[in-house]
């Protein structure tokens, strides 16, 4: 029983629109697992089903070897933490209070904090490098800072699995690398299973252990980056010409888009 998540014959549709068709796969505990695929391939839907936000039409999801429905909302919240795509926040919470809210599955109904909750909050803020912002209001932060606050909040839940929906979208290069390094440390130091939806094939190749490539709601390929990121598979998925070679940084592929003007040469 070393699978964090096992998905079997998952089917999901919005009305007549079938988004996921019979997907099955499993994610090993402690892996860095990234889901990629073109727009509308069902990545976010798949992630939201795993997070328990959506209910699949058919099929089942096992968390740590037990069916999803065997868990209560609170007990699942102690295992899985979710970092959503960035949402605007209208209410002026300060950073520390937002991070502290991650403790709520471990607390009573009113979320009254104990001393160790505050310690965990402080550690989480230090881990993601936002402790100097702890008294600042959420709506005064930059995109990168806010994303790290939400990750600290997720870490506060003390989860075994952390889910992130396109966390690097709209971040600049420095913040992208910083965020991915953070996830790598989370996996290495705390043994947390990291599952991420990403648009960025190259970032995915650099960090992940396993890649799932979705196309039109089906799993096109699953495996380590070297197996999934071949130009045949990628061109089939994305329908454009791509150049795949070995990254100068190590033993993983590098994907380059090929513009029309370069093809004429």
């Amino acid at each position, binding site marked *: 029983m070393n699978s964090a998540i096992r998905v079997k014959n998952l089917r999901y549709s919005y009305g007549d629109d079938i988004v996921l068709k019979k997907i099955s796969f499993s994610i090993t505990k402690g892996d860095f697992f990234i889901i990629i695929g073109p727009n509308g391939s069902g990545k976010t839907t798949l992630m939201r089903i795993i997070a328990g936000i959506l209910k699949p039409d058919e099929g089942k999801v096992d968390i740590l070897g037990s069916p999803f429905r065997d868990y209560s909302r609170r007990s699942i919240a102690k295992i899985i933490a979710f970092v*959503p795509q960035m949402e605007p926040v209208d209410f002026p*919470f*300060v950073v520390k209070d937002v991070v502290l809210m*991650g403790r709520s599955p471990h607390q009573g109904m009113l979320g009254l904090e104990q001393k160790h909750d505050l310690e965990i909050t402080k550690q989480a803020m230090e881990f993601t490098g936002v402790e100097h912002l702890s008294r600042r209001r959420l709506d005064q932060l930059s995109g990168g800072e806010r994303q790290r606050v939400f990750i600290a909040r997720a870490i506060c839940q003390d989860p075994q699995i952390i*889910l992130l929906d396109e966390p690097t979208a709209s971040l600049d290069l420095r913040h992208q690398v910083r965020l991915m390094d953070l996830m790598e440390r989370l996996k290495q130091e705390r043994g947390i299973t990291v599952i991420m939806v990403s648009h960025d094939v190259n970032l995915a190749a650099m960090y992940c252990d396993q890649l799932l490539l979705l196309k039109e709601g089906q799993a096109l390929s699953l495996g380590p980056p070297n197996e999934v990121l071949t130009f045949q598979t990628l061109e089939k998925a994305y329908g454009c010409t791509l150049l795949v070679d070995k990254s100068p940084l190590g033993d993983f592929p590098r994907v380059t888009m090929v513009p029309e003007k370069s093809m004429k040469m």
Partner: protein
Amino acid sequence: MINKSPFIMKRICFVSLLMLLLLFLAIILGISMGSTDYGIKTIWESLTGSGETDSMAYSIIWHIRFPRVVLAALVGATLSIGGLVFQALLRNPLAEPYILGISGGSAVGAITGILMGISRFPGVSLTSFAGSVATLFLIIVISSGPTILKKDSLLLSGVMVNAFCSAVIMFLLSIAQDSRLHNILFWLMGDLSLSEIKGVMILAATLLPCFVLIFLLSNSMNLLLMGKDVARTTGVNIKAVSITLLVITSLMVSATVSHCGLIGFVGLVMPHLLRLIFGPDHRVLVPACILGGGAYMVFCDLLARVLPAQGEMPSGVITAMIGAPLFIFLLKRTR
């Protein structure tokens, strides 16, 4: 472990005490001031029955002013907490209970009652309550199904129901006899006079459990503001919490509206003001809104009684006159 009670608990207690003090002050002022003024001493003596208080003062204080002040406090508390809850549920800092059209339905019910010539209490209260409950059901039916949790569908249904109710009100006004017109207009502007201790006590007994329940859900409201996905994945049963809050608050608001007519802006101004002072944590804001909103309404009602040289004006006029400019000021300052 010296520091045993959590920080937030201290904060809740501190803020509640502060607001309680304010409410207490407002109530004392509300009882002592009016067409004739009484000192603290007279109030105390009439309460304990000692000294030589005349029966006139006793009956003014305990049969007229006391029920009225308590009603004002309850109304203010309900409207403020209603605003707070709707702002959290719709994730819109500008929402308030009337936005769902509950006031409109309640007004139609009350005016129908007045036109039928039945007694103010319990007659008109009951028809008005029936009107608002009917609107609530209508709104839930209109926006039910998978769209119930979308903020826009609730909001838009409310606006439309309100618009329809306004038309019905205008129709009723146009066919009303002159003698009853004054009654109707006073009710539409929000009127706390004619409060009777029995009715007020029934209202208090209805509202108090609702206050407690809303306080218990205050942490869930905090989590809801982080977005639905985050709330759900931190263990909140969003649907149950939202529907519970919606139904409780609507019932509370319709119960008070049926007693005192339409009093605007309290639900908009108080949560906003208190949020500016104490921050956005609902565990602090819920008690603050109950006590502070009550105090605010008692003050407004006092002004409504004291300001006019003769007679009095509807309290709704005062709340709107203070509320609207204050709200614009706050809006300018925070944006």
